């Protein structure tokens, strides 16, 4: 695989909603033959998803809550394995999937930069070379040396994004967290993402904010119930997504007397 290339081929992953599971050794030994088939609901988070992203491309991913956006990122990042199919990224993958992902709460922002860099496979020298740029970009000032458990959501975003944006990744996977930042920092983030893309990085950005997608991505995939419902230019994809939401809202609404489903 070329660095920066992303391939999802018939990627499938289901989660069983664990109502009852053998969670202790005692249960496993005491009830070895009880199978909890009946009444166990299965969620198909990814259902034969096919997507290919070329190096240097920016793909936006939208969908309702539960459509499979975060699961897709987690499978691409290698955190959750697939049941079948392929989900691979070429080159160095850096992900920002949740606020405070990978932070040790007792440690300062600076120490967490080292820890986060290390988690992504960077060595001490590589991090040293970047640490000043990371601290500057975050605009955290003296708070960089304070334990991160005292940070607000916005500060977590500043630190987390700073780190991710300076690790010179081939693939950046970013989940819907930008909304937590204030307008000016969000702008700064999107600019920085654009810079990285000019360097040749590939981006997969999950967001509920159409403006963020429009600003950075030219292509968007709309996920619905684990499937790719639309894959194409942003100009067509976002209206498609809105229509999908409107249709579903209309379908959910109980029909009142005198009203038809069409209006």
């Amino acid at each position, binding site marked *: 695989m070329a660095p920066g290339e992303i391939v999802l081929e018939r990627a499938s992953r289901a989660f069983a909603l664990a109502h009852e599971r053998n969670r202790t050794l005692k249960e496993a030994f005491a009830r070895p033959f009880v199978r909890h088939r009946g009444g166990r609901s299965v969620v198909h988070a990814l259902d034969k998803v096919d997507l290919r992203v070329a190096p240097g491309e920016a793909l936006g991913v939208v969908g309702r809550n539960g459509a499979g956006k975060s699961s897709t990122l987690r499978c691409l990042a290698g*955190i959750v394995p697939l049941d079948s199919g392929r989900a691979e990224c070429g080159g160095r993958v850096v992900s920002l999937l949740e606020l405070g992902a990978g932070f040790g709460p007792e440690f300062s922002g600076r120490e967490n930069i080292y820890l986060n860099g290390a988690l992504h496979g960077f*060595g001490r020298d590589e991090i040293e070379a970047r640490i000043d740029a990371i601290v500057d970009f975050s605009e955290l000032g003296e708070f960089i040396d304070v334990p991160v458990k005292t940070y607000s959501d916005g500060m977590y975003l500043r630190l987390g994004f700073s780190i991710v944006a300076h690790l010179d990744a081939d693939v950046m996977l970013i989940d819907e967290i930008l909304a937590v930042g204030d307008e000016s920092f969000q702008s700064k983030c999107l600019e920085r993402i654009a810079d990285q893309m000019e360097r040749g990085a590939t981006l997969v950005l999950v967001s509920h904010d159409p403006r963020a997608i429009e600003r950075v991505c030219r292509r968007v995939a709309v996920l619905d119930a684990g499937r790719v419902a639309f894959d194409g230019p942003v100009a067509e994809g976002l209206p498609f997504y809105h229509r999908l939401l409107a249709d579903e809202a209309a379908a959910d609404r109980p029909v009142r007397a005198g009203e038809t489903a069409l209006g």
Partner: protein
Amino acid sequence: MRYAFLFEQMVRRELRQKYKGSVLGVLWYLVNPVVLMGAYALVFSVLWRIVDIPDYPLFLIVGLIVWVFFAQALLAAAPSLVLSAPLVRKVRFPREAIPASVATVQLITFAVMLAILVPVALAVRGSLDPALLLLPVIVTLLFGLVLGLSLVVSALHAHYRDVEPVLGAALLPWFFLTPIFFRVDDLPGVADHRLIGDALEWANPIAPFIQALRDVLYTGAAPSLGVLAYLLGVAVLALGVGALVFRRLERDLAVIL
């Protein structure tokens, strides 16, 4: 190795969490085995007089520090993955680094205790033996056993949450069956039940390690080839099983934690 720096970071994290940054913290851990040694020596050698072993405190402490390393490492490793759930669920990295860093921190503690014990042992025995050169070998193999088992218990506990308490409960009788404060050959019952005697010495993977360390530090002789072969075999087996079990069980860790 790309993740060498990560491993270093995790060991520092563990060390800091355990010792809260104080150098004396490591020395604190010496207090536990020394107190135990004092108590056992008092009861078995002085008061009850059922052991007739020269330099009994030295005999005791060698076995005790091996046991403390083994038991503490496993007890800390078992919940380690669960405690690091936020990390495991959100970032991709080699997860074996977690139980490995826990075991390494215990190894550091063990090494410090050994460093203090060796000169004491030499002073008590009054001789410097070439068998001492085997010490790093024995310690390395012991770490192999501990690391392998740490991988197993950490992965198992993530799936079955009573592994940690079960382990805690099992370690108590295990301690008493390990020849820490007695010699198997000294037990009166062993003469009539030779099989049990052999089981005590060989079926318990920790026993030959204590035997080897006693040979070097307490007796001043090299361990027998049989013991050394056993140590090597057990270490390799534990690492192999540990790696296998961990690989199998860690697939869906991000989902079940």
